[in-house]
């Protein structure tokens, strides 16, 4: 029985949260990695693109909710997603036309594009705050839990509870679908391959009759979709606040890079690695140990490898170690 409790405690406080956080990071990292892979720069505006997509979806959700539409146990926001994606796609396409296109034509170095994307980030940053403000917005409806801790305790009679949120399940499923679809798209469709060809050698892509503007447009549309989905799922789980989306940029990049920039599978793996390292290394195993060990051996301290103060630092330290042993990330990314 106690062993069961230990397992459940571990599941509830380590595994499930890490999976939830990991898949959120992974979805964000997928967008970053795609831009890096095809357009060859690190897009700092991605966090704010996610915020914009989430915002557009929230506005649409409010509209739907006002109209009395609901999806039952699922959040209404899912219905509003296409609107958000469309709005975001329009925004990023316009941005590309107004901003990035010029630098592509100039064959500017990637670092210039990185800095340019920071300019775009500032602008989007302002735009989102302009439209919806800086405050927390809650827009989740439907059932919050698939199973809540209390229900679980009642059901099983264990001391420990296990909570699984609807948003977590949706996020994991969606992340899985997205990476599979993206992988298939890039490696097995003509358009996908032409995108890879474009990223490899732009001039030669021209010589093969590939239309660069089309490739770029498709990339941006996919990125807009990924960003919106990631932003909305994150918002459903944690609430929407523009500043958080900006902060999310760092772990997202970490995930994309540790997984290997340019590799969709790597983005997923990276997201989970970051999430698991953050949660596990700073988890205090006291409770678990108390369940498992005989009373005499019960730990005095917290049995915590490192205090949560260093959570962020620890995940970065792990990144550095991973990179030292696999210099291009887990899945062989590329370096410009």
């Amino acid at each position, binding site marked *: 029985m106690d062993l069961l409790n230990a397992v459940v405690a571990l599941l509830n406080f380590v595994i499930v949260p890490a999976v939830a956080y990991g898949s959120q990071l992974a979805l964000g990292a997928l967008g970053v990695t795609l831009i890096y892979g095809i357009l060859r720069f690190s897009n700092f505006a991605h966090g704010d693109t996610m915020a914009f997509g989430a915002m557009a979806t929230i506005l649409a959700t409010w509209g739907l909710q006002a109209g009395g539409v609901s999806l039952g146990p699922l959040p209404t926001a899912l219905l509003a997603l296409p609107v958000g994606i469309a709005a975001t796609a329009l925004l990023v396409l316009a941005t590309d036309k107004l901003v990035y296109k010029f630098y592509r034509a100039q064959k500017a170095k990637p670092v210039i594009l990185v800095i340019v994307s920071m300019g775009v980030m500032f602008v989007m940053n302002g735009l989102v705050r302009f439209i919806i403000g800086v405050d927390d917005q809650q827009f989740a409806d439907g059932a919050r839990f698939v199973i809540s801790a209390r229900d679980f305790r009642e059901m099983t009679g264990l001391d420990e509870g296990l909570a699984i949120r609807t948003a977590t399940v949706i996020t994991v499923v969606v992340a899985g679908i997205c990476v599979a679809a993206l992988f298939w798209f890039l490696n097995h469709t003509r358009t996908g391959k032409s995108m890879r060809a474009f990223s490899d050698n732009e001039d030669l892509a021209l010589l093969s009759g590939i239309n660069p503007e089309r490739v770029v447009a498709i990339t941006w549309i996919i990125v807009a979709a990924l960003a919106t989905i990631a932003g909305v799922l994150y918002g459903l789980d*944690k609430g929407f606040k523009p500043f958080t989306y900006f902060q999310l940029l760092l772990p997202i990049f970490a995930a994309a890079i540790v997984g290997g920039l340019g590799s969709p599978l790597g983005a997923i793996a990276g997201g989970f690695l970051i999430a698991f390292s953050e949660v596990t290394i700073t*988890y205090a195993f006291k409770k678990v140990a108390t369940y498992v060990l005989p009373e005499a051996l019960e730990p005095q301290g917290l049995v915590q490898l490192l205090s949560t103060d260093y959570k962020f630092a620890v995940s970065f330290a792990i990144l550095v170690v991973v990179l030292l042993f696999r210099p291009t990330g887990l899945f062989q990314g590329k370096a410009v």
Partner: protein
Amino acid sequence: GSHSEPVKIGVILGFSGPLESLAGPIGDAADVAVAEINAAGGILEGRSVEVVRGDGTCADAAAGTAAAERLVTSDGIVGMVGAMCSGTTGAILQAVSIPNGIVQISPSATSPGLSTVEDNGLFFRLAPSDARQGQLMAEIISGKGISSVALTYTNNDYGKGLADSFQAAFEEAGGSVTINAAHDEGKGDYSAEVGALASAGGEVLVVAGYSDGGGAGIIQAALDSGAFDTFVLPDGMVSTALTDRFGSDIDGSFGQLPAAAGDGASSLEALLNDAGVDGASVYAREGYDSAAVLLLAMQAAGSTDGAAVAAAVLDVANAPGEPIGPGELAKALEILAAGGDIDYVGGSDVELIGPGESGGSYREIEISGGEITTVTFH
């Protein structure tokens, strides 16, 4: 300046940056106070008051200082409400206010370090130093017969100062703090923190954070995972943002915030809400009070000269005198104009002690039925 020229005061808050969502209401509340004074015919024999805003950013002391510098030397402000975070506040004080002899009243800087800073008598704050609140929180918790708590604080001078003073007081009183863990603002995911907190155990979770930031994130994660269901909420956490979000899920949680006995607080909250400002937002009331005290002190001093105003602040804020509540600024101006004495109470029971900071009376609250209810005053 001539008598028809408006009196300019600066409002420097972290409008962009990590605490940007708190800045809006504080600034707006200050505007409400200024509007009230202007409606009453202004100060210093009919001069109207104009607010110039500056972005203190909370994260970039240099940019905040530059903004203050501009307000003082270019826009010509004669007094300042701000800054918001203790870091920026200290920097502006050193680099701008003292050299230029400007009175600076912060609605929200709570770092104990500011109590002893060399300020040439120009610096005041309406938020109490965190040292006092920690003690009180320990008393309240012990009073409920709770002997073991988990503690998490937002990783800045406010959170850390509060957490430290609380832990010291609580352990003194025989309680035990199972874990004292920081959380960072705006980091989105707090499962690691909650995992550690849950494992350490404790009857309740003390969350020394912000109600629309990491603190709420911690509570969300704790509720979701079933780790804790009762929370102790200090000032940064008590706001309708919290009850709006969690409703009766956090029933039974309790806490305290600097606030006056009597109905100053609630009437100011109502006043602000009527003006379209979220009166329950953290430090919004102090925002109103800061502007009010600053302007009333000018009226009392009969001039906008920094030294004179500084000398008048304590007179205006403290007894003796006619108590002045929210919405009574017109009356206060009248009394002062007539050479009388006032004791500004406002929405946060203003009472300045020692080096010019709020002495700290507190309101103990409890969440019940998804509402913040007042239990008693300390």
